[in-house]
């Protein structure tokens, strides 16, 4: 029988526990170790390109934590619900890491010619003649030039960040203002956040679609899939949610989070994770099935690059980490309600995102296309993203510490103090 009748009180001090500083120190250690390894590996591989490829992977991963946070923040404003209040402050902290992601983007834009084939090949006809690319690539690069060009990449990239920055700025600013306001104005704030977040989600999905076409899909200029943007949006939610649950669970070892995190909401967050696990496999499988059935040369090649030449087991493991493990674990009610076990599932989910991003990016480069083999450069896919995520974490813990970890003046706060039930 679960504990049913007990009253709780909200602690007076709602600021982040001191442990966050410890975590930050640990993140700094991780960053240093991976950075050193990355440099040492460069000495062995003599490949600056490998660093850049790893960098792109690290960028996509950090981006998914930042923008996943922003998307979930807007979703919880629009949908309401107690779980939203619980994770609101960590989500805000995630969204505020946008500047560091922008800095991470700059090397990609600067060394664009070393990463994207359409930027490297300025004269497709000539390149085709010289045997550098095939006819399909030459056609695609020439045809898509009005969109895929270096100036456009820079301008769009800056616009993307500006748009995300505007939403991040206001959502964070208002949230702080709401804390100092009285409960009387709850309704006013609620509407204000809804009015920004609703259109915000529309803009978000469009901008993110553009972003994933620019940064990931265009790695192979011949390939296209209209669902890719959608998949990318879901991937942000998948990573963002797993990460924020991890943060909340870690915070709940200390005051004040231990007072507000109930089993009921933890269970809800677990269910939400389950929903993202399902949504992700739904998208991934639908895209695969449609392209597999159509079997058209300009589409199927993308998959062939990623399942032949040793990449098959990687794709299989991707499926295992991304769906099989989290799905069967999250089916269990006990796992969703147990802090340690749920945290482990979230770690698996985050690891799956890393694995998937590698599988998505690496086979796009000619040396690795449909040809998985060990090189020293390959290790940069571990070291560079590792160091970047460490850096991101340092920044994240700093932003997390800068505010109270529980938002105030929300009617749900009272409800979180009530007792809970088994079914809920």
């Amino acid at each position, binding site marked *: *029988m*679960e504990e049913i009748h007990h009253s709780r009180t909200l602690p007076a001090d709602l600021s982040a526990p001191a442990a966050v500083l410890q975590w930050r120190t640990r993140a700094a250690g991780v960053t240093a170790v991976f950075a050193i390894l990355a440099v040492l590996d460069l000495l062995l591989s003599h490949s600056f390109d490998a660093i850049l490829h790893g960098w792109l992977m690290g960028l996509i991963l950090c981006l998914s934590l930042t923008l996943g946070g922003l998307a979930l923040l807007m979703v919880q404003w629009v949908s309401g619900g107690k779980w939203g209040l619980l994770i609101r402050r960590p989500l805000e902290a995630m969204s505020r890491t946008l500047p560091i992601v922008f800095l991470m983007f700059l090397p990609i834009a600067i060394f664009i010619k070393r990463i994207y084939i359409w930027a490297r090949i300025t004269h497709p006809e000539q390149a085709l003649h010289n045997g550098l690319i095939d006819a399909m690539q030459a056609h695609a690069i020439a045809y898509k030039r009005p969109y895929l060009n270096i100036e456009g990449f820079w301008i769009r990239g800056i616009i993307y960040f500006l748009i995300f920055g505007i939403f991040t700025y206001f959502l964070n600013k208002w949230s702080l203002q709401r804390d100092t306001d009285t409960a009387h104005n709850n309704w006013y704030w609620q509407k204000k956040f809804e009015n920004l977040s609703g259109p915000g989600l529309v803009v978000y999905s469009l901008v993110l679609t553009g972003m994933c076409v620019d940064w990931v899909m265009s790695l192979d200029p011949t390939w296209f899939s209209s669902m890719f943007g959608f998949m990318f949006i879901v991937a942000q939610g998948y990573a963002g949610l797993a990460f924020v649950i991890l943060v909340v669970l870690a915070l709940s070892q200390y005051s004040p989070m231990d007072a507000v995190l109930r089993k009921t909401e933890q269970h809800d967050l677990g269910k939400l994770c389950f929903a993202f696990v399902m949504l992700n496999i739904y998208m991934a*499988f639908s895209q695969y*099935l449609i392209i597999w059935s159509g*079997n058209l040369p300009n589409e199927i090649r993308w998959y062939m690059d990623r399942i032949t030449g040793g990449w098959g087991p990687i794709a299989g493991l991707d499926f295992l980490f991304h769906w099989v493990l989290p799905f069967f674990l999250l*089916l269990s009610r006990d796992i969703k309600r147990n802090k340690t076990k749920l945290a482990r599932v979230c770690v698996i989910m985050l690891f799956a995102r890393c694995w998937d991003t590698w599988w998505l990016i690496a086979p796009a480069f000619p040396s690795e296309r449909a040809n998985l083999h060990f090189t020293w450069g390959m290790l940069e896919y571990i070291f560079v993203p590792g160091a970047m995520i460490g850096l991101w974490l340092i920044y994240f813990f700093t932003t997390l510490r800068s505010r109270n970890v529980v938002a105030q003046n929300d009617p749900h706060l009272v409800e979180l103090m009530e007792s809970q039930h*088994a*079914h809920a």
Partner: protein
Amino acid sequence: MPVQEGIYGLLAEFDTPTELVIAAQASYQAGYRRMDCYTPYPVEEAAEAMGFDEPAEKGVSRVCLLGGILGGLAMFTLESWISIWAYPLNIAGRGKWSWPAFVVPAYEWTILWAGLSAGFGMLALNRLPAPYHPLFNAPNFRNGATSDKFFLCLEAHDPKFSIAETRALLESFNPVSVVEVEH
């Protein structure tokens, strides 16, 4: 089942769910185990008060999971058998064992059989349909149990049951009425 005679239990009627939960809790603490509450909508607190934790019992969930797994496996196996041995066809050069295509019907059958198992499993675990039940003999039960009254029934086959003492216990909760229910 042999025809049962005599008393089935004592039925106390309450107006509010809170009173019911208090009574159920106290009866449980007094040592009664063979009891049940009857309410016009699910009252989780009542189940907790009687020490019945369905989510921990897991009966329905297990039946559902089993049904789902069997349904999915059955369809996938059938599709594979048909496409490889029973009636192999060459469709646009795809392999005989085209698993991506087979996933879809197998998925539908997973849901179909999981859903049927959950629905019918719930009924079976509840021993429904049961058109006759002794409680329907109590006139106030039929009047209120499915609309606005809350009932607690302490059953006669509980070892602690004795008409006088049990009635006294139930009376102490200030119910609207306490009636004997005949088999």
